[in-house]
């Protein structure tokens, strides 16, 4: 991801430089570098967000040797925000802050 980001920045800077230098071939090369790195970043980031690995919580149960499964499907079914790599803010999923407001729909 970091390498792709570096390529993207180089590509953008190169595009601007090539436009100023009026070098069309170089410009297309930089456009190509930028777009390939950009799509790589996008795919790498958004695919896990849309299709996260679902872990079967039951499979963590060790034949009665350990306690009951202490993780649930919902607790492992949690990918991070793409590109930012921080957890989703589930408090605000329904457009209000559950930590501050209690809403009982009537």
């Amino acid at each position, binding site marked *: 991801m970091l390498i792709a980001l570096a390529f993207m920045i180089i590509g953008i800077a190169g595009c601007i430089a090539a436009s100023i230098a009026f070098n069309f071939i170089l410009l297309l090369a930089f456009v190509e570098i930028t777009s390939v790195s950009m799509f790589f970043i996008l795919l790498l980031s958004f695919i896990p967000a849309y299709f996260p690995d679902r872990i079967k919580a039951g499979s963590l149960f060790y034949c009665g040797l350990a306690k009951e499964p202490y993780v649930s499907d919902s607790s492992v079914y949690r990918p991070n925000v793409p590109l930012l790599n921080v957890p989703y803010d589930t408090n605000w999923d329904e457009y209000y802050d559950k930590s501050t*407001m209690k809403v009982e729909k009537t």
Partner: protein
Amino acid sequence: MTTAAESVLTVAVPILIVLGGIISPLAFRKGKGLAASASLFFLVALALNSWLLMGVQEGAALYYPNTQGIIFNAASAFIVEVTLVLGFLGSIYSYRYFEDEKILAPFYALYSFFIATLVLMAVSFNILIIYVAFEASTIAGGVLILFTKRRSATKAAVRFFVLSVIGAVTILVGILYQNSLTGTFMLDQSAFSGIANSDLVLLSALYAIGFSIKVGIFPFGLLWLPAAHSEAPTPVSAILSGVMVQIAAFAASRIIGVISPVSYELGLSLVALGALSVIVGAVLAAVEATYGSKYSRFHVSPVNIRGIKRIWAFSTSSEVGVFYMLIGLALMAPALSPLFFAGILLHFLNHGLAKALLFFDSGFVIETSRTADLSLLKGLGSKVGVNGLTYLIGGFSLSLIPGTLGYNTFLEFTRGHIGMEITAVIITAALFIFFTTLYSLRSIVAGRPRAKVEYIDKVHSRATLRIPGVVLAICIVALGIIVLLGANGIALEGYYHQFEEWFSVAARTISEPWVGVA
């Protein structure tokens, strides 16, 4: 002619902002220092641009030597000035907006980069630089939407990315076509003389369609605009709506103005598209305020809401229609194009300030009440304070009420050279926005929730979130009063005529870079 050293000044503003975005997070990891440092860079860039703007007023134009790809003239300087003012206010606003201070560093870096790409788009007469800045703004803008960290924000960002890329590909086709016709990427009127009009019409249509996606014109705008504007963090919503879509419209007007094809039909199509956007956006804003996303649609979450920011996102989709109407009118009546182009600059100012204000104030309401849904909002009453008034001023400006900057747009569309049908479209949309403003404010101040709402924690209030709304409201009213008194010959006529005269010269520099240069 300018020296090479002076020419560097044309790119000094975006460079300064990008530097601010890099240096500030490195010097300060979080908190006050980071926000102050990033804002300071914006302030320095603003001071520099104001100084250049004064030079431009005296008949100077700065440009890149050899290629003349970036030309800093009256129109460009004006657009950059509005962008920097809103960028600076957004930077101040962001400091207390995010609760998690750890994300402030990447946020400021991306935010600064985003503003810099928009500035670059505004000052360029080279279509390739516009294209690259367009793509870079897509990347930065898309990632900035994610900072709300909601699942729905991810969906909104994906929509924004996908549609922007479709727009960019259409523009790229136009760029290659332009190069095959003229052999240059420069937006220079002389390069297009001698080319068959049918080719110019096709080229203009390609650019108009490509940019219409980013501008948010009907129907493309409805697919991404309400989602992205409402899901993004508020300072980003304010910039997306008050600057980004407008700069895309400004770039479209510059490109089509330079190509200037002779085609009544193309002009009529752009007017029709613009009029559809104006009406549909205004009606959907009213539907969102009264019935919510269940009926207004174009929502990215399974939870239906009456979103405060969604109202103003639909309104943006309506306001950007005005730009396409003005571009279309300029094509239909080329002799009057300076008037319509002046209208584009005036609408940029009015919509930019008013919409940014409304988003800033909506964000303040959301952060104070801890809900983005008008149905759940408990009447904030006196807690809204002065921001209730500023919210009203922003809404009134979009409703074209005299005494606000919107009255200028009203004057533009009620003067003799515009048909009654077009005036009727603009006034109908203004009436819808007027109703929407009053109805949504009523919900904010005195609303009763449709569910049982109980606050677990005490209601938050952050003073810095109030500042941008107040500053913008003062600007809107001050300029609005000059327009109201000056245009009707009551007082301040001298100022008003200076204001008008400057805009008429600046309007010509949208497509003719060297007009007014000493």
